[in-house]
């Protein structure tokens, strides 16, 4: 008798959950609470971080799905917000208690065919486009400090440089190093903004820290300056 009751309860639950599945689009949402957990870590970090920015990146399962105009929506019972994504899929996630308590979801403004989200730490951009070598090193060290705080596996890593990521369209991606009165252009390549990203055709310039200190001049604003660890 008890077993029959258990079975009935399980079947009822299964049907209830099945209806839920039918109503939701598989892979087209992410729990706000889970994203919040990842993002709040940076807020709670007590180390130096004034040269950094921490954002949430939307990663579609397939390449090329992040076209222009895609937004990330926060949908709760009372909270409804849309967040603009940059070309790399990043946005600043507001840490909202109401959205957390309502178990809100994050979903794209148009179908992406499934996506995940990931926290990304990058260097803060400067309005004048000039980055002193010492400042880049300090920012990279700040990013490494945070990475070590969040991940024990990062303890053995060292800062080796930065990657400047530019928009695919529009203005040219030019970066020059100014040292001892001379300027030298850094080679441009195609690659992913962040290691492991499926979109790997961004114009990128890699600057590796060397013994000679200089100044990095960007003639167009990069999308992101990514710290490189090795």
């Amino acid at each position, binding site marked *: 008798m*008890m*077993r029959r009751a*258990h*079975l009935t*309860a*399980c079947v009822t*639950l*299964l049907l*209830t*959950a*099945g209806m*839920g*599945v039918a*109503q*939701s689009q*598989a*892979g087209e*949402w992410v*729990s706000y*609470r*889970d994203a*919040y*957990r*990842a993002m*709040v*870590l940076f807020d*709670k970090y007590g180390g130096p971080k004034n040269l950094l920015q921490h954002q949430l990146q939307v990663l579609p*399962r397939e390449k090329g799905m992040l076209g222009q105009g895609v937004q990330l929506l926060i949908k709760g019972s009372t909270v409804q917000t849309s967040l603009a994504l940059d070309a790399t899929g990043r946005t600043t996630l507001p*840490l909202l*208690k109401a959205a*957390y*308590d309502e*178990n809100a*979801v994050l979903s794209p403004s148009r179908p992406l065919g*499934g*996506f*995940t989200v*990931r*926290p990304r730490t990058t260097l803060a951009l400067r309005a004048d486009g000039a980055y002193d070598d010492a400042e880049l090193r300090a920012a990279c060290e700040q990013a490494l400090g945070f990475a070590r*705080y*969040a*991940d*024990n*596996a990062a303890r053995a890593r060292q800062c080796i440089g930065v990657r400047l990521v530019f928009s695919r369209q529009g203005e040219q991606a030019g970066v020059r190093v100014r040292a001892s009165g001379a300027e030298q252009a850094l080679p441009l390549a195609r690659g992913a903004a962040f290691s492991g990203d499926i979109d790997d055709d961004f114009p990128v310039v890699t600057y590796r820290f060397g013994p000679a200190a200089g100044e990095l001049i960007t003639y167009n604003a990069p999308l992101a300056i990514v710290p490189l660890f090795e």
Partner: protein
Amino acid sequence: MKQFFVLALAAASTAASAQTPATNPMPDGSRDMYAGVGAVSRPRYEGADSTKVSALPVLQVQWSNGLFISGMSAGMHLSNRPTVEYGPLLSVHPSRDESGSGRIVDGVGVSSAPSLLPLAERLMRANRLAGMEDIGARLEGGFFFHYYLAPEWRLTSSVLYGAGRERDGARMELGVQRLALQVAPQHTLALNAGVTIVNPDYNRAYFGVSEADAWNSGNPVYRPGGGIKDVRVGARWNWALNPSWMLVTNVQATRLVGSVRNSPLVERPTNVTVSAAFAYRF
């Protein structure tokens, strides 16, 4: 960062092992709660050859101050660092009686001298716990300490004291977990392996046979020592059906080892527990 997308959802009744969910930072005054029900197939008792299927309540609550309830355990996260978790832990150790089979209990209970039964008749009896003194549910106290080798790899440990008839049984669980292996969108797989080390009092309570027990049950007297009690491997599959509902499936294989392995109460050293439950996220 994957650790933060892991739900260490505990199955309330599937195992005696203490459950400690990953730390869960949230806004002050908030909480994250899962509750649900499902079914579990598990050995009738540790070392039993027979299995039983029963309802499986699922409960996990975490509060912003670090307190948590996870299955049969409750505790508090005291660490401020994301790579280390530690804190006090309370756990309810399940009771053990002749159950599962009341008739057998009743039948054995009225026997004045079961040890004098013919051997063949004793072997025919399906329940080796028949005649053994019951052990009530016990509240154990202790602490846990977890260390993240990397965000997806967690070393776990816990020490609990208070199990057994005399409440003097102690157990230490050591384990390693591979968290949040995303096999498909909304599907995550977590793997774990571990070992349980206990003191002699624990083993004597749950796997020993005292002279009185021997007289009442027909089992030979047995006094196991302490040491490694079992080794285990398991997998947990979480399927987020929608933002609120989740299907949690657990499979765990446990092998009794050491002096426990030779206990007259142990019918088979390897047991498998399988459970599935729906949980609602509040």
